[in-house]
């Protein structure tokens, strides 16, 4: 089976930096940015996109619906 690729899109202006997504991610795909968004909050960002398995635990936990996930057509298909 060819590897699947997932793309995570985080709306940094919606993110409030609660870190729930970072905590639940089983593959350490997400981290909290040292930078601030316009509301003065550290936002989550994707550090390791290739490791994402598309489990959607981060988007389920996100109280602000800031995370959207798409499955891309595999590069090796």
């Amino acid at each position, binding site marked *: 089976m060819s590897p699947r*690729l*997932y*793309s*995570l*899109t985080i709306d940094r*202006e*919606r993110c*409030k*930096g*609660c*870190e*729930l997504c970072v*905590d*639940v991610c089983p593959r350490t795909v997400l981290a909290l940015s040292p930078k601030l968004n316009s*509301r003065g*909050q550290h936002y989550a960002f*994707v550090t390791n*996109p290739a490791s994402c398995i*598309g*489990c*959607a*635990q981060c*988007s*389920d*936990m*996100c*109280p*602000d*619906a800031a*995370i*959207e*996930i*798409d*499955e*891309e*057509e595999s590069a090796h298909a």
Partner: protein
Amino acid sequence: MSPSRKPTQASRRSVYHRPVSLVNKPTHFCPGCGHGTAHKLIAEVLDSLKIREKTIGVAPVGCAVMAYYYLNCDISEAAHGRTPAVATGIKRCLPDRIVFSYQGDGDLAAIGMAETIHAANRGENITVIFVNNSVYGMTGGQMAPTTLSGQKTVTSPCGRDAHTMGSPIRVCELLNTLDAPWHIERVALDSPAGVRKTRKALLTAFKGQMEGKGYSLVEILSPCPIHMRLSPLEAVRFVKEGMVPAFPLGVFRREGKPVA
């Protein structure tokens, strides 16, 4: 993700996208607040059942008072605790609409306890979504009827003492003693699995109402990091380790029959 890896729209399959029934603007809720998750799940259920156009919500007084800013369906505002009464009126006048009330623990279990019990006892065909975060959030973290024994709040600074302040009210168990309710379930936003169970519970409740089955209540144990005086991660852990033992999860009433 770098722009070069971005595929064309045609080659994408959505895994998770923000529901259409959720208005695209940031909420006023504190970081890590469970109300945001609950709003999101309601919006997802309205989307998946395709009932947004005929749904009328009733917003409470409390942190969720501004549900009408975030949920893209018709919403009425009720006086504090009177949400089930207003929902009853709307449902009886417009029986073809889907009517839900969204209430916090202060609204449902304190000032609105009479309305809650009587709406359930009449078996009104409405869905009540009860967000239990064990404190009064909006007014500054005072003790609620659902505050745990020993839990410190601004009005129980030495911890809630059962002798003088009573024990937490378990609303699902209380309503389960009535004959009329169709579905009563308690879920918790303590993990991704809990979030998925919450989505399923809301789906069951709304589907039941669409089929005219009668009263359904979904109690959602939810973190309130600010007034639990914890970080968002610790607050989720508090829900799992503190609230869930005091408020057992599960289905209490299924298809109108108590679950043994």
